[in-house]
């Protein structure tokens, strides 16, 4: 008979596997139940080396800072100076990235236009064409030319202030898109010439050209149609930035838009978002090197996007060689996306504030990434525009604050030597010295 008074045998604590973690196992079960990969919106959620891993070296005795607010620190930038008769002149080097009508509601597009125009910068259409709301409220509008060519027409093309040929985007370089049926409303369906309610598949390659030699001819055609007036941007996802920047320039780009892996998307496979592409931080130096090797740095402008959130990010991207940045996700957050005031509703959708990424399902409580009339009505485009303008102002002031502290009278005078890195990874990717040293990985002489 067992002795009841003997001490219990020590037991091993249950240990969660780091490899087969609960989130991973949940994903395995989801895949097993549905037979389809997870589709979501947004950009990479995993931690990757980022601008936070860089710090600025302010001025003190060896260099002299500029007086905040009093001594000038210019923020203006001109995009498209290479071939276009009418380059785009912006007051601030922060632009709004392409986001489609369809992925976003009409009022949300309107708010982007209002906010950007008030702040003196440009906004960008997306997959699905140009809406009157957007054109009407954007003083500078970049028209995206995408593989799907949804809503593509020469009338809108000629209304654009610049044309952005989208080759890829950071969230899914090499991939197309997927807009699920819930969001193909009557209006979206009509603009895209698709049956209502279907899952819309977007192609990954353009239908009528492949490769830089063909792209050069495509650019010629678009310039001929638009009379060589407006700049042609080429947007690429961050994968092989040195070669892709080189080839975009050889093909005749006025501006290269480079989108790192933290860049958002309306909807694509989670596996794509998290596992394909380069962190934004790692994209900039190779692209700038390519421009410098061709003698084209600042001649062909570089716009960097993918995870830009603060004025510090703006300043760091410019210091590494960008001419301007573009924001997408941050602009949506400024408008009210993932706002805690909708927490109850996020909970009902099985998610929480800050984690809501089912932008493709059209049930956005904030009324931004939806085509549902009731949800859309929650969003006020005038108030949204004001919030975006405020946010853009803060980004600019923050970047100016840093530039002045580094002794610069123009944001463009920021340079890599103004930076140091907190981690080996960031030092290697940004090619700036590890803090307190004069060395970064890959540089000889250690």
């Amino acid at each position: 008979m067992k002795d009841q008074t003997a001490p219990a045998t020590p037991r091993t604590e249950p240990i969660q596997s780091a490899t087969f973690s609960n989130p991973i196992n949940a994903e395995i079960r989801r895949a097993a139940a549905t037979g389809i990969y997870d589709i979501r919106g947004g950009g990479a959620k995993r931690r990757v080396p980022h601008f936070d891993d860089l710090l600025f070296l302010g001025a003190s005795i060896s260099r002299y800072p500029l007086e905040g607010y009093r001594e000038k620190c210019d923020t203006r930038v001109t995009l498209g100076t290479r071939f276009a008769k009418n380059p785009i002149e912006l007051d601030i080097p922060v632009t709004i990235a392409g986001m489609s009508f369809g992925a976003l509601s009409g009022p949300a597009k309107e708010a982007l236009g209002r906010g950007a125009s008030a702040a003196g910068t440009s906004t960008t259409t997306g997959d699905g064409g140009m809406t009157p709301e957007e054109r009407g409220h954007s003083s500078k509008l970049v028209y995206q030319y995408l593989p799907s060519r949804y809503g593509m027409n020469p009338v809108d093309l000629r209304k654009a202030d610049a044309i952005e040929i989208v080759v890829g985007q950071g969230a899914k370089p090499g991939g197309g898109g997927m807009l699920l049926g819930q969001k193909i409303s009557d209006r979206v369906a009509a603009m895209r010439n698709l049956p209502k309610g279907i899952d819309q598949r977007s192609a990954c390659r353009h239908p009528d050209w492949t490769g830089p030699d063909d792209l050069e001819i495509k650019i010629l055609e678009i310039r001929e149609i638009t009379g060589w007036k407006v700049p042609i941007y080429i947007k690429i996802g961050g994968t092989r930035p040195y070669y892709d920047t080189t080839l975009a320039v050889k093909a005749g780009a006025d501006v290269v838009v480079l989108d790192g892996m933290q860049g958002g998307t309306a909807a694509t496979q989670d596996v794509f978002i998290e596992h394909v592409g380069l962190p934004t931080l790692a994209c900039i130096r190779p692209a700038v090197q390519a421009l410098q090797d061709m003698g084209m740095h600042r001649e062909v402008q570089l716009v960097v996007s993918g995870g830009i959130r603060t004025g510090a990010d703006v300043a760091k991207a410019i210091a590494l060689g960008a001419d301007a940045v573009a924001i997408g996700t941050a602009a949506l957050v400024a408008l009210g996306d993932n706002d805690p005031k909708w927490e109850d509703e996020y909970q009902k959708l099985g998610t929480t504030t800050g984690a809501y990424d089912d932008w493709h399902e059209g049930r956005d409580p904030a009324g931004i990434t939806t085509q549902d009339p009731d949800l859309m009505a929650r969003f006020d485009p005038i108030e949204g525009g004001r919030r975006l303008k405020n946010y853009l102002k803060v980004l600019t002031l923050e970047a100016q604050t840093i530039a002045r502290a580094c002794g610069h009278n123009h944001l463009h005078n920021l340079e890599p030597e103004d930076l140091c890195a907190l981690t080996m990874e960031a030092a290697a990717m940004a090619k700036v010295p590890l803090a307190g040293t004069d060395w970064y990985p890959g540089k000889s002489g250690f």
Partner: protein
Amino acid sequence: MCGIVGLFIKDKSLEPQLGALLTDMLVTMTDRGPDSAGIAIYGSESASAAKLTVQSDNPDADFATLGDDLSKAIETPVTVTVKDTHAVLAMSADKIAEARQALPELRSDVKFMSTGETMEIYKEVGLPKDVAARFNLSQMSGSHGIGHTRMATESAVTTLGAHPFSTGLDQCLVHNGSLSNHNSLRRKLRREGIHIETQNDTEVGAAYLTWKMQTGSTLGEALESSLDDLDGFFTFVVGTKDGFGVVRDPIACKPAVMAETDQYVAFGSEYRALVNLPGIDTARVWEPEPATVYFWNH
């Protein structure tokens, strides 16, 4: 990414114009490939002689006494014809292998372009019209030729990165497109003992054909198997002593136009390349099908 031109002459009376026609075709394709240009020309066969075409960045120094030095080293007469940075070394066919071995010791900077009984390859960095002028391509005559203008994608703009690539005696390859498995294939081919000089994807395509033919395939069979073993986008044009062939990958996005008359068969990446050919207005013009090997032989 590039422009390709090719001309295979059926009517011998056109042979003296081969260089001039090809040069015009090549220069038309400048927009597709402004970085470098090259041409493989199948000229006259000299009695019992084979030709080794080599390149040097210091041609004056390297080529001055090369004929004598090589002649001594391999104990056979060698005649040298210098054309700008290239030199054609003619000798008896059975001495070619020995010459290839001896050359690096005599002139460490000299690079091999091609070997052949009739084929010579000329290629350099620069605009196609400048490259053509350097080698006086327009004065060359021959039975057929292939030209290429290059827009480098992922490898360096160098002489050795320019096309055509030699794949064996009298055989060459040019490419428009971008291969996606060339790194793995390069490692495999190097293990098989195939010499590959550059990081260029097309050189791997050329080396692949060389390897297939060394292991018993005909060129046609090698091209057929390339459709299975090469991944990515490609339009290939290959030259042989007797003719030339064309193959496109199964997706076949990269452009290709062909024209045939009683006098010639011509290839161009764009129709523009063909517009000055005699009788083009009445030629049969068509596009080669995907994943299909075409050949024209004398």
